[in-house]
């Protein structure tokens, strides 16, 4: 009996150690139906409102002549930022062979795929003529940063969907073997997985190729999103720091969103045995580092603008620091720096509720950052025109709610049909990782002193 057969043999039975991970699939309760109906209603409302916007025109939003971009673009950048949670974190943790990744990667990858789809749809909401959206393909100009975005987001969506699906195959096969309904779904998606050594070798190979491939794609995505702004001549946007600044912000908000989701799922599905204090502790250290990186970038960006004292830059600068956007600017600094650093620096406050508060604060703060980037530069034209203002209309708020509801519904539906924590990776970890890491650690230690005979032999040779 090979090792693979053994794993298969122990898990296909009805009762096994990781029963908890399949509970949400095997006996989904009334709660699932209630929650998904409620979320569905919110999403339906958003679609109706979107239909009305198509019929009447973008006049139903709060956008205007200098401030031609608002919530839709802010949320586009924000959601795509959140999507960096996943694939990037999961790929980096896998690549660095961090053993504590095992219960985290799946959730991170799901967030990526769901949020990326929502984010990528946002520019369509923002189009004056969504009926002509396909002109992007038939008449696209590759010189336009918007086309760079289309290419890079499609690549990222494809790669991260595959990267979510491939490591899920053994778990789907497990559900198929346990006879979970709908059987056709699991039979189809399991792709004939039997857990043979050859299949496992192929799986491992595919995952290791994908995890390397996905990292540069993920970084390119937020870099070119920043290029939409940085490539124009507008004060406050035309900055070389924007690429890395956006990537850092994206990973920052991504980790925060991931931890929020993890804490909620831990509570809802009773996953305390799997998502332990140590996982949150490590992730929150990562969040702390990103927060410091973020303040470093923010400081550099604004100091450069301030010290140069260029009039049109200063108009945008003071609009944010002391002007109408001061409340948003300073709450962004508080939410992205003071709150997370204050909470996560101390062991006493680095508890699960503390981490949840810090993460929520970062998610809000990063949304404010996107708002602070998009609106003030547009509201302060270079020519002596009156300063613009932007108050989002109810339509834009409803679409915002619709975006969030779509995220939650996507996640809930995923949790209903697939395990949120990779069962086979947990089992593999239990079986192999202690031996593997011991071996690896031994590899770090200095070599034992060679015997004198061997030493003199090498000296002569």
């Amino acid at each position, binding site marked *: 009996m090979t090792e693979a057969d053994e794993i298969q043999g122990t898990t296909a039975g009805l009762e096994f150690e990781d029963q908890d991970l399949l509970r949400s699939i095997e006996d989904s309760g009334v709660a699932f139906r209630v929650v998904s109906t409620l979320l569905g209603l919110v999403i339906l409302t958003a679609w109706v409102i979107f239909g009305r916007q198509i019929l009447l025109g973008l006049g139903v939003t709060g956008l*205007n002549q200098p401030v031609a971009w608002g919530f839709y673009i802010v949320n586009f950048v924000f959601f795509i930022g959140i999507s960096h949670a996943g694939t990037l974190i999961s790929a980096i943790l896998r690549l660095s062979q961090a053993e504590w990744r095992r219960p985290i990667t799946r959730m991170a990858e799901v967030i990526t795929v769901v949020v990326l789809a929502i984010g990528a749809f946002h520019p369509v909401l923002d*189009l*004056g003529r969504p009926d002509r959206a396909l002109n992007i393909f038939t*008449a696209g100009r590759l010189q336009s*940063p918007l086309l760079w975005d289309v290419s890079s987001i499609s690549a990222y969506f494809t790669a991260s969907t595959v990267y979510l699906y491939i490591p899920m195959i053994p778990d789907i096969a497990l559900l198929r073997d346990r006879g979970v309904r709908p059987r056709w779904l699991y039979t189809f998606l399991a792709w004939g997985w039997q857990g043979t050594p050859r299949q496992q070798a192929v799986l491992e190979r595919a995952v290791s190729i994908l995890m390397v491939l996905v990292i540069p794609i993920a970084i390119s995505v937020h870099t070119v999103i920043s290029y939409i702004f940085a490539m124009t001549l507008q004060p406050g946007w035309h900055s070389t720091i924007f690429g890395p600044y956006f990537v850092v912000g994206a990973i920052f908000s991504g980790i925060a969103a991931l931890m929020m989701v993890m804490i909620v799922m831990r509570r809802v599905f009773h996953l305390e045995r799997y998502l332990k204090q140590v996982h949150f502790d490590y992730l929150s250290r990562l969040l702390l580092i990103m927060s410091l990186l973020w303040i470093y970038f923010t400081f550099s960006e604004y100091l450069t603008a301030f010290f140069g004292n260029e009039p049109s830059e200063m108009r945008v600068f003071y609009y944010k620091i002391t002007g109408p956007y001061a409340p948003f600017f300073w709450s962004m600094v508080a939410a992205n720096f003071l709150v997370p650093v204050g909470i996560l620096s101390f062991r006493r406050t680095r508890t699960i509720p503390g981490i949840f508060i810090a993460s929520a604060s970062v998610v809000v703060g990063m949304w404010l950052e996107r708002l602070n980037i998009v609106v003030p530069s547009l509201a302060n034209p*270079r*020519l002596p*025109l009156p300063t613009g*203002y932007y108050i989002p209309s109810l339509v834009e708020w409803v679409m915002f709610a619709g975006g969030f509801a779509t995220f939650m519904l996507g996640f809930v539906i995923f949790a209903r049909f697939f395990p949120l924590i990779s069962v086979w990776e947990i089992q593999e970890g239990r079986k192999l990782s202690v031996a593997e890491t011991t071996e690896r650690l031994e590899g770090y230690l200095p070599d034992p002193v060679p015997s004198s005979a061997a030493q003199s032999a090498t000296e002569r040779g």
Partner: protein
Amino acid sequence: MSRWGMVIDLDRCTGCGACMAACHQENNLPAAGPEESSRDRAFHWLRLLPEVSGSGAEVKVRYVPQPCVHCDDPPCVRVCPVHATYLSEEGIVAQIYSRCIGCRYCMAACPYNAKVFNWYEPEWPGDLKRSTNPDVSLRPKGVVEKCTFCHHRVVKAREETRAAGREMRDGDVTPACAESCPAGAIVFGDLDDPTSRVSEMTRNPRAFRLLADLGTKPKVYYLAERD
């Protein structure tokens, strides 16, 4: 081939706004109405830019007519994802209404805020729609539009000169704003013809261009006021 440009002499300009009104008439620009205007959606291809100088009791306000400056290196054309805005051979920055997807990237990228967007389907109160200019197409909702240097007049003049069997030259075309200016402050013509009136005026030491340091090479020049 001509390269069209414009010179606006601020010494002659009285700020009367006739150019703006003529532009609205000529190019079928619907009036935005008080409600939309109060929401910062006033709709002009040529606006009067308020210029405030002095302080205290000595405040002086004057208006500078500002159409699209038709850059030779236009930032809006660079960013358009679908080639809906382009620089024509005669130097006119044009917009293709039927191709524009309404992403408003060009508006965000234009340092002159020269482009406007159709937030709603344009409204024509009463009988006004029947008095629109048949030479200029009406725009649908959801697309970006802008000053065309009265491109339809350029097309008409080209047909006429072709019929007359000669090349088009400076003075064959006058856009509505220049035509309507009672002070003769707006001059339009061929910048590539060194003998044209616009060329001569651009060599005037009073000549300047808006935000010339951005390197967009605008083709609308101004002559500064004499003291």
